[in-house]
């Protein structure tokens, strides 16, 4: 194989979105809003996925997220997992646990699946099912028990927003009861369906502060027995995060149809060609595609990033490109989360709106659906 170009990054993570089919309808889903479009229903055959997994390992990928949509909806999930194991990848099944049939999960264990992550929407069954738009809570609890019975390390993931962030304490208790070793409390980031539902989802500053306090107290109480991840929403930061560890630095994402992106939302950026693993190798796409090179490094940066007063160009990589696009219309602009961005007022205004006295009736959700919007 040709020599690796000097200074080119090696990816660590492959996010394999095996399908956009999913029994849940979470209004904050990070999938694109046009998941029902015909281009996504033409799903990549299993053989192509298997080749992609082997190519990913050769590129230096260590971690594989088998996700979607609902990855268990792909009938070849066991074969795909076996290939990942043979390639040496550390595999995580990111699942809604609908479905999570015992024989199939045992087969996944046999095939070498390393880790199971189950999403929960709330600790209260009724509210959880309302948020997810499906009767699911009890089945998730049973699935978590099955995962533990098979000795999988279990992560519970709960995306936080206005309607569940006040329940952080009971969500933590639930994770302990389920036998989870990790709990991801990921505040909603506003991409995909979450953008459509921003007003209904965005918490107040007071809610966030209470949530953070609850997490701190639980960390002290629980120590190493439960690792709790708490990710602050960008909207309440003054400096941007290095989105995905920097554009096209650590991760590659393959959509159900084989399109390859640096992140979940990158397809929203117009006028950049998207390559597909049906036509090219993952290596060629990673190193040479227009999409992966569009915002790699720092040459693309505009002011104020170019002469960042804090010299953070290599720390935050200018923040999130998709957020810059959504809020300024220009994907190469500084992420408006940044206090130095001339568009920072859009973030401040959204915060202020969230902080307004809560309306008697919460804003209704637009549920994730395959019907084109």
């Amino acid at each position: 194989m040709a020599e690796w170009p000097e200074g080119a990054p090696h990816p660590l993570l492959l996010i394999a979105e095996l399908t956009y089919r999913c029994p849940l309808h979470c209004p904050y889903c990070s999938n694109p809003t046009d998941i029902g479009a015909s281009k996504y229903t033409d799903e990549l055959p299993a053989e192509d996925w298997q080749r992609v997994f082997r190519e990913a390992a050769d590129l230096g990928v260590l971690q594989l997220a088998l996700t979607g949509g609902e990855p268990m909806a792909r009938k070849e999930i066991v074969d795909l997992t076996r290939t990942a194991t043979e390639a040496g990848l550390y595999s995580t099944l990111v699942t809604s646990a609908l479905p999570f049939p015992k024989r199939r999960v045992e087969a996944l264990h046999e095939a070498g699946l390393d880790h199971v992550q189950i999403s929960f929407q709330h600790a209260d069954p009724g509210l959880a099912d309302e948020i997810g738009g499906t009767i699911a809570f009890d089945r998730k609890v049973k699935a978590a028990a099955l995962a533990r019975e098979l000795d999988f390390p279990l992560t519970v993931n709960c995306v936080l927003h206005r309607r569940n962030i006040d329940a952080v304490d009971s969500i933590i208790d639930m994770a302990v009861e389920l036998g989870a070793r990790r709990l991801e409390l990921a505040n909603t980031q506003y991409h995909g369906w979450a953008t459509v539902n921003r007003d209904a989802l965005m918490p107040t500053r007071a809610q966030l502060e209470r949530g953070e306090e609850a997490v701190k107290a639980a960390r002290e109480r629980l120590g190493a027995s439960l690792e709790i991840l708490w990710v602050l929403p960008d909207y309440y930061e003054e400096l941007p995060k290095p989105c995905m560890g920097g554009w096209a630095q650590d991760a590659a994402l393959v959509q159900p149809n084989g399109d390859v992106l640096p992140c979940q939302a990158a397809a929203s950026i117009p006028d950049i060609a998207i390559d597909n693993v049906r036509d090219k190798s993952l290596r060629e796409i990673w190193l040479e595609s227009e999409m992966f090179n569009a915002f790699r490094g720092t040459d693309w940066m505009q002011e104020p990033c170019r002469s960042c007063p804090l010299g953070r160009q290599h720390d935050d990589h200018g923040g999130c490109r998709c957020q810059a696009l959504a809020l300024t219309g220009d994907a190469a602009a500084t992420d408006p989360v940044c206090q130095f961005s001339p568009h920072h007022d859009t973030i401040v205004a959204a915060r202020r709106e969230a902080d307004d006295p809560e309306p008697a009736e919460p804003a209704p959700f637009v549920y994730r659906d395959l019907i084109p919007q």
Partner: protein
Amino acid sequence: MAFTRPKLATGVRLHRDKVREQDVLLFPEGALVLNETALEVLDLVDGERTLDDIAAVLSERYEGANVKDDVAELLDGIGERGLVVEADG
């Protein structure tokens, strides 16, 4: 607190990263790059050997050097992240 009989926690495994030419400990959503010493110790962590057994093997390898404290310290550090646990616990 030192381990008596350490083992890798569920879902934690050693992996040779051929691309970067280094050894790593893989675990849910993460990887820890291991230096030579850490690799040597973790190679012996199997839930069967006691801390004393591990120290004895390494001591023999290094001409009788007393390595027990170093081994204990190294495993405690990794244990704080929940990656190594007590097998007898």
